[in-house]
């Protein structure tokens, strides 16, 4: 597994925009002085007339995106997740969400894997913030293949979409001919009978590795990739709970309000089973290399494995 190809989903975002830009003339890209980091710089080079740098003013950028969408363009407003969902929250809610304008928000540098920049830039709350806005689709792709597919799906989707991307290069796991991306449809990556691991974003890879470790102990885990936090694939979540009797969610996000909460909301009402939410435990992050932080905050495969082993203890 060590020689697996790695690419950051923010790179995928930039690459997908260039491809789509050739195909769709009404696609425009906005940035707030971070085109180099959000990887939209490639789009800027290719289509300088359709790239709009708003300067360091994310609230205004969201409003400009709304105005562009109201006049028939499909804007991708790009910045760090912290500023897209945090600073500009109310602009996203009132200027984009409420009028249901066709704006796509490309939020890069999400989660703790931002690394060295530390807590001010590690947004572990964006899924929660975006998920509560009515009518907005929230996507959190796991790898390069999925991220590129998500960008095109977002373009084709009529209405606001929040896309979450990471800074860290992550393994490509969906490189197979049968791969198909559909907003709102989760993907079963591994079948299992003892427990279901529902993961999103870079935690999908870590969860697959954890499932391999569990297999050695005789715990057969089903692994589900939920790339769409909203609308959540409730059917798959319920089916998984009924099939395996236990559900563990894994996300690079606070355990409050994100995937874990979304799954718990569904299961508590429709198919209650024992649950464990793995994620950031209601704390701020800190500076450090991404891989070390992922380990320290319990999102690496070994940590996931131990927690699930504990959950399943005594039953085998």
């Amino acid at each position, binding site marked *: 597994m060590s020689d697996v190809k790695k690419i950051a989903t923010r790179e995928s975002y930039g690459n997908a925009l260039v491809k789509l830009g050739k195909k769709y003339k009404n696609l*425009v890209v906005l940035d707030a002085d971070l085109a180099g980091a959000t990887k939209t710089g490639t789009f800027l080079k290719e289509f300088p*007339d*359709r790239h*709009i740098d*708003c*300067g360091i*003013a994310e*609230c*205004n950028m*969201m*409003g*400009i*995106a*709304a*105005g*562009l*969408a*109201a*006049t*028939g*363009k499909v804007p991708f407003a790009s910045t760090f997740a912290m500023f897209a969902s945090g600073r500009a929250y*109310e*602009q996203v809610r*009132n*200027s984009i969400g*409420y*009028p*249901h304008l066709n704006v796509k928000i490309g939020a890069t540098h999400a989660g703790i894997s931002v690394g060295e920049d530390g807590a001010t830039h590690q947004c572990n709350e964006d899924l929660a913030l975006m998920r509560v806005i009515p009518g907005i689709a929230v996507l959190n792709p796991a790898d390069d293949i999925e991220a590129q597919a998500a960008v095109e799906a977002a373009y084709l989707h009529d209405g606001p979409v929040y896309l979450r991307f990471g800074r860290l290069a992550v393994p490509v796991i969906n490189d197979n001919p049968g791969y198909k991306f559909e907003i709102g449809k989760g993907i079963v990556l591994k079948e299992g009978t003892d427990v279901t691991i529902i993961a999103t974003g870079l935690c999908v890879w870590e969860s697959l590795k954890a499932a391999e470790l569990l297999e050695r102990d005789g715990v057969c885990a089903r692994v589900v990739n939920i790339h769409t936090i909203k609308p959540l694939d409730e059917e798959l979540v319920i089916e998984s709970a009924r099939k395996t009797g236990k559900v563990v969610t894994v996300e690079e996000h606070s355990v409050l309000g994100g995937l874990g909460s979304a799954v718990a909301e569904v299961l508590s009402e429709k198919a209650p089973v024992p649950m464990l939410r793995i994620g950031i435990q209601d704390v701020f992050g800190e500076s450090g290399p991404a891989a070390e932080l992922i380990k320290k905050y319990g999102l690496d495969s070994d940590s996931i494995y131990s927690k699930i082993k504990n959950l399943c203890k005594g039953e085998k």
Partner: protein
Amino acid sequence: MDELKLKKMANEIRKGIIEAVHSAKAGHPGGSLSATELFTYMYFEEMDIDPENPKKADRDRFVLSKGHTAPGLYSTLANRGYFPVKDLLSLRHTGSYLQGHPDMKHIPGVDMSSGSLGQGISAAVGMALSAKMDGEGYRVYTLLGDGEIQEGQVWEAAMFAGHRKLDNLVVIVDNNGLQIDGKIEDICSPYPIDAKFAAFNFHVINVSDGNDFKQLAAAFEEAKKTKGQPSAIIMKTVKGKGISYMENNAGWHEKAPNDMEYAIAMEELEKAGETLCQM
């Protein structure tokens, strides 16, 4: 439309504002009345629009950034033929399409949902930018309150509009001098407003009486001739204009007239209408 007709229309629009806010038992008459001449001038004189085809792609756009003065916009749109005038009585009623603040999804003629102050101007800038990118000739207008410009986002938008030389954009500031808590210069003074917009690379047009159609006409002519930079029209107005007891009274920023106050207001507007008819 000649000036007398515009004055008569403004008087009708004022009646609609009072009726709507009275029926709603809530709403913002003060800033609706201060901007009534502006609304009238926009929709009956200045803008290239078609009430039969409210979504016409090449229409001029108007964004009410000071969205709380929706009664003024709604009464204007109704009198212009976008929807029935009698519907104004459903303002803010449960189930009505006439929401407390402009809602582009459900109200014919509303170009942008607004109401959270400071946000409308950014959307207007986006529309003006879009027209420039496409080589379209439509113009974009946005009305801001003088209290609203305390919001930082206004200046983010202004900086961008000036930088991009959006000469198809006209920002209008309704300088009635009052906000909810009192006089704007007592709360957190935005003065000098004109010098601020000039510093953000706008062509600034000061209007000493924004309730005067001649002055508005001259200002918008000047804005149209301005090339290479956006225009800002800073117009002095009277809050609550046209209703004696509401004029220059911050208390009428957000307050509905009771039945007796309503009767007085309507009587004043009837009289004003009669006077205009004798001219």
